[in-house]
């Protein structure tokens, strides 16, 4: 009851005088109710699931920047299944990348659930120009999945040499311009000339989160 009352109070405060940002409201509510879904930390300051990855120094790392939140963090690879890598952050949000291409998000505050990127991937990795389709399925605010298709033009844009944590990497730059009826975005990929893998990418994760920058990182 008090829980209800407190949250109601906070909620009403938020509704009538919402000059403070929602994040503040959400944090206030979370503090007020002592939210147990916020993960307990180990002595090193990591939740056990992430700490296990930290301990294994063979686990690959990734730098993630959420551009419009100006947030950068380091993620570690938890698993690779069916060609999809699951990258985990210390607060247990996850990014799914398929050969470096954004395939899904979990807990990031993005609606993107999963994407089918097989067509553009074939063009990008092979260095060809061409049109392709990609599919995004999003979780709506009503907990339903809605799937959208985008028509994308993949174009090689020359080369660039990147200074990454893993060293200096010569790359091919490839852009992917995608459009649907009412949305458009442009992803950029940097493909290592040597390994043929995507070592850096700037990809759109939906209206809420905007663009994500991922870079191969060293442990």
């Amino acid at each position: 009851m008090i829980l209800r009352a407190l949250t109601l109070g906070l909620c009403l405060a938020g509704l009538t005088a919402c000059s403070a940002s929602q994040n503040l409201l959400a944090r206030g509510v979370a503090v007020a109710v002592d939210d147990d879904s916020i993960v307990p930390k180990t002595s090193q300051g990591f939740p056990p699931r992430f700490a296990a990855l930290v301990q294994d120094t063979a686990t690959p790392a990734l730098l993630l920047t959420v551009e419009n939140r100006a947030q950068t963090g380091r993620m570690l690879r938890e698993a690779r299944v069916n060609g999809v890598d699951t990258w985990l952050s210390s607060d247990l949000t996850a990014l799914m990348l398929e050969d470096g291409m954004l395939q899904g998000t979990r807990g990031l505050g993005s609606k993107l659930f999963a994407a089918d990127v097989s067509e553009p991937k074939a063009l990008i990795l092979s260095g060809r120009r061409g049109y392709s389709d990609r599919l995004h399925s999003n979780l709506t605010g009503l907990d339903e999945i809605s799937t959208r298709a985008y028509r994308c033009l993949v174009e090689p844009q020359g080369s660039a040499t990147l200074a990454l944590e893993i060293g200096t990497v010569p790359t091919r730059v490839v852009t992917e311009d995608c459009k649907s009826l009412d949305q458009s975005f442009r992803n950029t990929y940097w493909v290592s000339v040597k390994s043929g893998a995507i070592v850096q990418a700037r990809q759109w994760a939906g209206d809420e989160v905007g663009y994500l920058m991922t870079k191969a990182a060293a442990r």
Partner: protein
Amino acid sequence: MQGRSRKLACSMLAGAFCVTSLAEGSAQSLSTYGTPGLVEMPTARVLKDGDLAFTASAFGPNYRYSATFQVLPRLYGTFRYSQIKNITTNAFLDGDTFDRSFDVHYQIWDETDLRPAFAVGMRDFLGTGILSSEYFVATKSFGSKLEVTGGLGWGRLAGRNSFSNPFSILSDRFDTRSSGFSGTGGQLETGDWFRGPTSVFAGVQWNVSDQMTLFAEYSPDEYTRESVNTGIDVSSPLNVGLEYRFKNGVHLKGFVVGGHEVGAQLSYVINPKKPSVPGGLEQAPRTIGARNRLAIAEWNNSAAGGGRDAVEAVLQRVLAEDGLELQGFTMSGNRATVRVENTRFDNEAQAAGRTARAMAVTLPPAIEEFTVVFLERGVPLNQIVTQRSDLEELQFDYDGAWRSLARARLEDGHDQGREGELADVYPVFDTSIGPYLATSFFDPNSPIRADFGVQLKMDYRPRPGLTFAGRFRYPLVGNIDKSFRVSNSVIEPVRSNAVRYAKESELEVNSLTAEYLFRPGKNLFGRVSAGYLEGMFGGVSTEVLWYPMDSRLALGAELNYVKQRDFDMLFGFQDYDVVTGHASAYYDLGNGFLGQLDVGRYLAGDYGATFSLDREFNNGFKVGGYFTLTDVSFDDFGEGSFDKGLRFEVPLSWLTGRPSRTKVQQTIKPITRDGGARLAVANRLHGVVRDYRGKELRDSWGRYLR
């Protein structure tokens, strides 16, 4: 998603607000009555479907607090609490009047290029009639900046330059409208709707910028009744206003009514369809890796001390990370069954998905079929059967939600026993101490009253379904007991002595019960509760519910024998006792509407029925209302004429983006009296069971793989 327009709106807003739906206000301007309008006059506009708008306005002697809900795309309803200062010279309440009122508005036509939007509405159609008016109104926009509104009004909206009612050509009875207070209020004042003289009202709205709008209107409302004592001066028919819409969704309006009365208004619109964090902020689910690697996991390796018990321990730990409490585990052949209690996820399909994942990352490779049984208080509510290979295949599939649903089996689970029960599950002993808040609304002397204190809760469950529970309260501060309200009921005072209970109690045994929940058979649920069931009544309560897994319809029956408790809220009883109970039908009407009908005998011994309708958004946000008609006459019922109320429920996860089974819920009754009062027994079955039955599970399946 609305694509570009939404994107644009987002880029206009500061980054942080982009992810907040709370901030995404409607561009629709609201009047002092809290409904789409100009300054005081209504327009033919509506809010966006499902929108919930809150408005507070003040000018002269008038203070209005309104909540408007866009029930259907064309229909909105409003509840309002208003105060008019010094309307009488009566010393009672310093001459102020307090009033609760309801409006409805129906948009008959949308606007097109050639035709204006057209709507009909009624303000205060149920109350004491102080604010009553009816109207037909048309609104047309010219370009993106200008909007023109014109209409015909009756009641309050027929003052200046009124003429005889055009409906009089239908019947003479449209000529006259009664005036003054209409009895106890609360009744449909159908006798007065669209009656009496008629006036024209009109206005324009000029959108200066995306943030700012100017209003000017011609108002026929002369504030006749108020002008006698309150000193309100509305000598001019012209009202003007200026609204500024802040980026965070708050609308602030300044206005002048009648040339002299300066006022201010604050409004805020929320869209329940858009939770604050799209997609949520929960911790990511575990990825289901290659199954054969689990063969060498130490808990599956008998040479390394692994085996069923080791598997169980690992499974219990993995489930606990997601707030899922393992209570039973069996494994044989290629099948495994877990029985879990979900303490975290308000989306039950997500809980099912997480449970199945925990099994997939733990159990030996030979296990292919997973059965997840959800328990509440140890009683099985359903079971969900999934193939492990489907999870492996679909976990990253863009169409994984639909495909996994098509391949899963949702079953009743009534015959799940206690096989494989974990050794330390029973007895359950839960105790918590915390603060509580009790509220009381709409006392004219103090519209919001509250008591705040400490509460001790104790639960003891020796076996599945059987719970001994107590809730004890000690108020520390509060003012409910300072109220002067005494029961003036002419029927049995079963609820109207609330103030006396607050006054005469100190340490309070809020409830102290023995409760047994059980499954009498397939699709059936049963409950027996006995003891001090609620603050004012104690006794025995029995209930049975029929709810097939895939049914839209559920039927229930409840029978109680209860006695009224002493005002000290300890262990004694008063003389009054009653047999009360209801037959109930619950029906999912589709499109998020849930109807409920309860027919039976109420606490005061009156017979009747309660009609409820809730609009439930798939994310759990709920807005609804109910009314009860019984054989207690409107006069005997007293103020309000019959029992009615509005209720809303906001999942905490909607506010925070983090999964939680906590909800913010509140029922707002304009007035609490003794007719049509129901026993407030805990854990009525439909509420306990519904979220885990087929339709609700399917509707929430979008999160199964999240």
